[in-house]
């Protein structure tokens, strides 16, 4: 598992100009991109997922070239096989937990039925202990459950890499510690590379294997955690 990124993107509006110029390569299972808000962390994730197009550069995940300005490659977000955990989870409010989890398993124009659920979705529901709330809507479940639903939904689509945008910032501090260890445990069960962005040093300490510090749109330092 390898992620190889090197791209530039200039963002300018009337308020400010911001140059994102990010380059790193990692074969670690847990890559943490750490930095203050406004440093360009979320934009880096969006570029990997195909939601933001760089001006130039190259993005490669597991030998799949997702973007290469020199070769004219820019794959659509739909075919990048990237799992994305959004900061506020972006659960579909009109669908139940079970429908959210099975959302990416079919790509037709109809949402999964409320009454039945594919077997693979049922396995994810069980794995994340969501059975009791499978028929609930996102507004009816707790913050920790929302995060598990979002994780299950992303993983059910069988991604090549999982991108996590400030995964714990929406949770209460006591829950944060528990979800961190849950995520670490999940990581050791799955053979999947994770790229986590955070501004919280506690996340870096708990989850970082390969830690990249980002400031003002550039990688500022690059270090491997002890024992990582």
């Amino acid at each position: 598992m390898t992620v190889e990124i090197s791209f530039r993107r200039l963002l300018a509006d009337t308020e400010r100009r911001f140059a994102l110029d990010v380059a790193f390569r990692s074969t670690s299972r847990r890559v943490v991109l750490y930095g203050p808000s406004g440093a360009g962390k979320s934009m880096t994730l969006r570029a990997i997922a195909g939601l933001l197009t760089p001006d130039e550069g190259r993005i490669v995940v597991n030998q799949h070239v997702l973007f290469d300005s020199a070769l004219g490659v820019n794959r659509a977000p739909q075919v990048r096989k990237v799992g994305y955990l959004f900061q506020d989870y972006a659960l579909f409010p009109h669908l139940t937990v079970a429908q959210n989890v099975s959302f990416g398993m079919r790509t037709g124009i109809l949402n999964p039925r409320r009454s039945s659920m594919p077997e693979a979705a049922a396995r994810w529901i069980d794995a994340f202990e969501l059975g009791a709330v499978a028929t609930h809507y996102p507004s009816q479940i707790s913050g920790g459950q929302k995060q598990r639903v979002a994780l299950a939904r992303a993983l059910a689509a069988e991604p090549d890499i999982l991108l996590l945008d400030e995964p714990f910032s929406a949770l209460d501090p006591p829950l944060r510690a528990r979800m961190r260890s849950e995520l670490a445990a999940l990581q050791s069960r799955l053979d999947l590379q994770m790229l986590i962005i955070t501004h919280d040093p506690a996340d870096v300490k708990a989850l970082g294997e390969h830690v990249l510090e980002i400031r003002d749109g550039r990688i500022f330092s690059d270090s491997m955690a002890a024992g990582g």
Partner: protein
Amino acid sequence: MGIWFPLLLSLKVAICATALNLLLGVAVAFGLSRWRSPLRDLVDSLLTLPLVLPPTVLGYYLLVLLGRRGVFGAWLERWGINPVFTWEGAVIASTLVAFPLIQKAARAAFENVDPQLESAARVLGLPERAVFFRVSLPLASKGITAGALLAFARALGEFGATLMIAGNLPGRTQTLSVAIYAAVQAGDDRGANILVVVASITCVVVLLIAGRLAPNRSRVPVS
């Protein structure tokens, strides 16, 4: 004077106009909500015109356009279609007059859909068409329904443009509003009274149905 024909004709015209507007208004609204262009404001103003122009002016435009010697009418004539003085003409008039109501409501609803949810659906592998039908449209459905009910009520009461293009042919194109006008003109007070009561009751029933539909339409939480 019969009550049933004008009432049923008005309902039929309003239902057809609302159905047409659901397709047209939602498609145009979705397109406009995604369109980034300096021309957008101009197009938006033009599409809002039916809301502010006098209905008789709209009716006149329709006559010029669809009449036998009209630009579009001459072309339709070749296919044996002439919408002037037909109930289909009344549908065209009602559709045009009510279009901005549904278009504006649908556009506001689409612009209120969190773009992150659409991004999430794309990353999960959904093609754009599926993103529309599975995320954007259901999340905008509440606003669209509200717009459709307004458009239906507007179409039901349409008078000016309808009179211009469909005329006042009892038993053929005479809708409820036109029949009331005709009854008053003819000094038929009894007929006018009955029709006015029927029109009022119909509107109250529509409002009651609307009130019942609206709050339970969507499970989107208010957060």
